[in-house]
């Protein structure tokens, strides 16, 4: 499988990456390199092998349902918002979103 330039541009758009034509072409070649690697792997007969969802064959550890993050005085919020580009009335402000 090989990727076309429009496909690369679409992937970039989905990931909100800005690429010019030269960069897209470089990315296309690199991605196609990765695809040939995947093709080599897909040539291996894996019938009868159960797909894994994680590299390690262990299960999720769970936490008890309890509130451990307390932020009563909003001091922590002020701390978080001090690194945000803009905040007001406790809200993070972002460029207007219109649906």
């Amino acid at each position, binding site marked *: 499988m090989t990727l076309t330039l429009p496909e690369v541009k*679409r992937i970039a*758009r*989905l990931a*909100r990456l800005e690429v010019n034509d030269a960069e897209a072409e470089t990315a296309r070649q690199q991605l196609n390199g990765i695809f040939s690697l995947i093709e080599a792997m897909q040539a291996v007969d894996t019938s009868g092998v159960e797909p894994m*969802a*994680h*590299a*390690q064959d*262990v*299960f*999720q*550890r*769970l*936490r*008890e*349902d*309890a*509130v*451990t*993050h*307390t*932020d*009563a005085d*909003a001091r922590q*919020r002020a701390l*978080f*918002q001090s690194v945000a580009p*803009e905040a*007001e*009335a*406790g*809200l*993070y*402000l*972002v*460029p*207007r*979103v*219109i*649906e």
Partner: protein
Amino acid sequence: MKPWEIVIGLETHAQLATVSKIFSGASTAFGAAPNTQASPVDLALPGVLPVLNKGAVECAIKFGLAVGATVAEKSVFARKNYFYPDLPKGYQISQFELPVVEGGQIVLSVGQGDKAYEKRVNLTRAHLEEDAGKSLHEDFHGKTGIDLNRAGTPLLEIVSEPDMRSADEAVAYARALHALVRWIGICDGNMQEGSFRCDANVSVHRPGTPFGTRREIKNLNSFRNLKEAIEYEIRWQIETLEDGGRIEQATVLFDPATGETRAMRTKEDAHDYRYFPDPDLLPLKIDRTWLDRVCKRLPELPEARRQRFVTDLGLSAYDAATLTATLETADYFEATVAVAGKASAKLCANWVMGDLAARLNRENLGIAQSPVAAAQLGGLIARVADNTVSNAIGKKVFEALWTGAGQSADAIIEAQGLKQITDTGAIEKLVDDVIAANPANVAEYQAGKEKAFNALVGQVMKAARGKANPQQVNALLKQKLAE
């Protein structure tokens, strides 16, 4: 040509009744000041890792057991990638290929009275996921405000098969599902606060032909909106097709003010979520032991309880359905029966659905907040059943229990001297006096006026201060007047 057939499937988001979020220890309480319940995990600060909430998983297990579904021994969390400011990670943690619950069924009753029918709606799946934050579009100098308190709130997305054939069936399904999640205690069902919201997939086609193209109506947060939105959408689709148009797959919003649906900006990439297993989370394992433990804690389900009320307690299907609308109502009713006795079950049903429900409605109270405890009402019903007091006096006693004038029906009957007069001699005396004192009424009755009889009964009851046994008064009065 055959008439159009309507095809509806629902996706429902039920907010799970946990105290903390699905992947962080922040509180899920509603109504806090903005961003005070947003932990570093909810804010997607670099270097944080999600840790799954056991309580949220148990809610999913309860649901799976309650609908007779398969609870997956192994399920997997996946990233659903899209960009929106109220989703700071740039992806939502959800489940895709291996959801926690697969299959299952909801039984519902559609319509009322003679036209009512039972319907089974199959479920495709239910999966765990996190909610996004809230975008506030009021004007912040031309910007949008983001509150991430809701980000990371656990949701169970319940997906039905496209089994519904009318807006009424869709609403009946949503109502049954709403009642069930509250019954098993996994969701508070508060639709105003967004704890239970539906997306409806609607299409129309001619029977025998493939399904039509569907449009998805997003975020319906009341049963009324659900019904109106679907009905509008059905009309719009049929008109479009009959005018020779085509339906384009789209996501639409319902505007309750106009009663219309309108398509959201469609983007070719909108549905390309590029799901993949979340490397931050290992697969979730639910073993038999855990399932059994949850199963033991599950209350008797509404369907089973409804049937038991009919077969065991002799209630009508209607009464049984009404009394199993919520777990609180069913528990309250059974507690009255426990005191009044099984033989009085029908009487208990009448009191709970009649006087109690009316009084609660008037005061805008839920049954759990009833000032009259189930045991108190059961005690009163027992006294009505054994003729200690008449039904009419029973209402008086009920009022006294409600206002707290007495602790038990027995105490109130004793203190206010409300015990019914059943002594025939005493009633006979009252009847004789009334006949002697009301010759005009007697004459009218004997001339064939039934109303005059009722006036005489009223006189006797008045003389007895309502305490005479009504059946005895009727019988004695008839007998005396015939003499």
